[in-house]
Structures are given as C-alpha cells and as structure tokens.
C-alpha cells in the first residue's frame, strides 16, 4: 500500500464529515428520523399517506446542494470513470442491496454507528469489505 498524499484531504474531509454529522444529528433531534438516503428515497417507492412530502423535500435539498455550493465556490469537477453499462449494473446493485440491507453509507455508516447499533456495525463492515474486494478485483486482478 502507498498513500496518495497529493490526493489526501483530511481537513476538508473532516469538515465535510462534521457537516454530514450535523445534518443527520439535527434531523433526528428535529424530525425524529434517521437521515439514511436509501431509506428516504426508497420510501418514495412505497408511498403511504403523509409520508411523501418530507421525503421529496429531503431529496430535493440533496439535489439542490450543488446550486447552493455554486453561490460560494467554483463548481467541482467530478470524475466518473465507470462506463454507462457498468453504471447501470452498479446502480441496480446499490438500489436493490441498500433496500434489502435496510441502509447505506448514511443510514448504517453514519447514523447507525453514531447510535451504536450492532446491525449497522455489521452492515458497514460488510459493505466496506465488499467495496474493497470489488475495487481490488476490478483494478488489480481483472485489469492485470
């Protein structure tokens, strides 16, 4: 293993992380709910009365975040390396997997670990391990 020192951004990462923790924390304190993106989004596909508006509003806030960002800073450049076919496969797996596993990086990784949920510790260990394994297979074994 070599560390990519030129790409490592611990200050911005911790500051952005604190903002994520602040929003998840305020969400549970104000609305009494877990700020888990897959759950918030997935719940829109299983609509029940009085449950749609806040979910749609949360998603709208996330999608609008780059607009708010553009008021303060120059736009970020994203690097999406995956091919369209790979993005379709990845999207299907992420959508199905997060619903079957009841959460993603936000619901399990941030909220669940913050509330010391044993299920979220197990889920986070599981998706992290599979993420590491998948990138290793694709980048180092397959490509070699």
């Amino acid at each position: 293993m070599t560390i990519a020192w030129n790409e490592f951004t611990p200050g911005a990462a911790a500051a952005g992380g604190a903002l994520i923790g602040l929003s998840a924390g305020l969400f549970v304190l104000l609305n009494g709910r877990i700020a888990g993106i897959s759950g918030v989004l997935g719940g829109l596909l299983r609509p029940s009365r009085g449950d749609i508006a806040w979910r749609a509003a949360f998603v709208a806030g996330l999608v609008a975040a780059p607009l708010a960002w553009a008021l303060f800073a120059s736009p970020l450049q994203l690097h999406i390396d995956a091919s369209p076919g790979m993005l379709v496969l990845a999207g299907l797996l992420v959508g199905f997997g997060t619903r079957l596993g009841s959460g993603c990086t936000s619901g399990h990784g941030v909220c669940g670990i913050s509330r010391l949920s044993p299920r979220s510790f197990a889920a986070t260990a599981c998706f992290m391990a599979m993420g590491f394994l998948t990138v290793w297979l694709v980048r180092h074994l397959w490509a070699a």
Partner: protein
Amino acid sequence: MAILVSLLIGLVFGLGLLVSGMADPAKVTGFLDLAGRWDPSLAFVMAGAIAVGAVAFALASRRARSWLGLQMRLPANRDLDRRLLAGSAVFGIGWGLAGFCPGPALVALGMGEGKAVVFVVAMLAGMALFEAVEAWRARSHAR
C-alpha cells in the same frame, strides 16, 4: 415545518458531501483501492460525521418526542439476519464498481452529470425491483 426541516437538512447534508469531496466517485474509489495509491480521506469523513452524530444521537435517545414534538422513529431491530448482510454485500459490490452510494449520486445528479442520471435511474430501478420482490413474497406467503 417538518417538511422545511427536511429540505434544509438535505441541503446541508449535500453540502457536507461536496465539502468532503465524497460527491466525486474517484475520491471514493481512491479510498476503496487499498492495493493502489490509497486516499484515506473517506475515513476522516466518517470520523467527522460520527463525532458530531454520536452527540446528537445520545441526546435523541433520551427523548420520547423530537424537538418539533414528533414521534421518534428509531429502528429497534438488533438481529443480524441474512437480509442485512446479503443486502449490504450486494450494495458494497455496486459501490465498488461505480464509486457511487445513494447520497453522492443524488448530489451528482444535481450537478447535471449525464452519468449520474444513468446511475440514479438504475438505482431507482433496483429499489423498485426490491419492492416488486417483496410484494411477490408477501403474496406467495398469503396463499
């Protein structure tokens, strides 16, 4: 009020993803690539988020109702079942393939990235497929 809170929380959450760099899939796969040139940034995002989140969830766990007077809806399930582990494993594979998880994908969608549109549509299809399988299972159980 709860709807306005949801909008603003979504906005701050998305700004956190942008500030942290995690809206960029290359930043995420840089963390997941242990055998290559490893970028530990994502671990610092998690640490920052959990440090703040842990305080809030400790406060929230002692409350019967939220600050807005709403019912607290925190999961009570503590069982490590097959669905949790299998679902998380499937999610991890998809996360590694593209570098996108749901939050950053929605933020990238807001940046007008064509490839993010492809990913989000496929992700919604995956979620819809899950709902269809659940409905089918419920029907076959009822029979």
